[in-house]
């Protein structure tokens, strides 16, 4: 027979284990991996991000894809799929590029960079005309002098090598070349664990389409599929 004191100790031990397991399970998704939302919330404070607003004074809002296309001089692809609850909350055209913010809430002047990308899991879709990378021959000569220019295909190879540590890989979506890596927790140069946004870069003719968000890579691919 156990004495009363031993029985109490065993009961406390069992209760501690049960509570511990319950707390752990609460932080796991069905696949047994930590969910990205928990991870990014936990580790976002380790990021070295200035408390800057998402929108800058340079961002020129446009009323829609037609106006954006007129400004940049090409047909701007528009996503017909977005993650559940997300809408295009802002579209901005600058020179030869367009960016769109997709989110499940409104963006205003008080929305901070960190709140959008990390706490809020906001998505940026950036479209860039690579044929206008260098506006003049002099620019191109200057770039050559500093090691460039390189073709976009070479650039994609570079990305795969550069981001090998993030498991970057090539893929083809509807016949177009892409490079992607998934959102993940990485360790920075001072040993802090920080969230890394998933990124998908696709080349469609003269356009580079870049999608970034702290969401599963599969969601970025679905968005790209709806644009290509």
């Amino acid at each position, binding site marked *: 027979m156990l004495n009363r004191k031993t029985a109490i100790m065993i009961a406390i031990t069992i209760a501690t284990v049960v509570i511990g397991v319950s707390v752990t399970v609460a932080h796991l998704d069905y696949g047994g991996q930590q969910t990205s939302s928990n991870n990014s919330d936990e580790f976002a404070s380790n990021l070295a991000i*200035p408390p800057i607003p998402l929108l800058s004074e340079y961002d020129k809002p446009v009323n829609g894809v037609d106006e954006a296309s007129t400004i940049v001089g090409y047909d701007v692809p528009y996503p017909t799929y977005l993650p559940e609850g997300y809408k295009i909350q802002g579209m901005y055209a600058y020179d030869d590029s367009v960016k769109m913010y997709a989110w499940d809430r409104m963006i205003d002047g008080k929305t901070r960079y960190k709140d959008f990308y990390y706490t809020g899991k906001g998505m940026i879709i950036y479209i860039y005309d690579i044929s206008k990378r260098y506006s003049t021959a002099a620019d191109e000569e200057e770039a050559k002098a500093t090691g460039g220019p390189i073709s976009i295909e070479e650039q994609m190879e570079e990305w795969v090598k550069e981001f090998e540590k993030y498991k970057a890989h090539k893929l083809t979506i509807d016949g177009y070349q892409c490079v992607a890596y998934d959102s993940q927790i990485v360790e920075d*140069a001072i040993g802090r664990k920080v969230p890394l946004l998933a990124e998908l870069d696709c080349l469609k003719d003269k356009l580079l389409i870049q999608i970034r968000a702290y969401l599963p890579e599969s969601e970025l691919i679905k968005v790209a599929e709806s644009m290509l």
Partner: protein
Amino acid sequence: MVGYMVSPLWVTAVNDRLLEIGWIASASYTPQWYWALDGIIQKRWCTNNTCPNNNSTWLFTIQDSDRDGRWVLRVGTDTITTNNLGNSYAIKTGAGYEIGYYDVNPGINDYKDFMYYKPSTGWVLLSSSVASKWYVIVPDNGYTVDYCNDAPFTHFKVAKGGGRDLC
């Protein structure tokens, strides 16, 4: 062109990629300089054993003068060229303006001085305290040098015409 960024110590590219040079606050106020991409520290300099000696100067710049999206960062004597991250909004970032760190009391948990450099006038002292939570400097030439203590990181920005609330 509204605003004109000059040797910014953080810069947001058109595609929202964020580059920054800043320092990590510490209990001893010994700055540990770093550069970061999208908030992720890529490299740091100046640990307790390698901080600048008395009267030494460290300079910091971020430039993409040819607008190829490859940014050149200089921290002290170290130069780093990034992969193609995206262009800045500015047509050209100006050259020659740099933030300097001038440690008048190395190893002492006290004031550190900062300077900026203008080729035509030389060094301009920006006396400051890293213990300050908020500090804005408006040099006579209209450039604003600003940093904010957003512990544990401290962030810089140099700009012209962009308004004072840079933090």
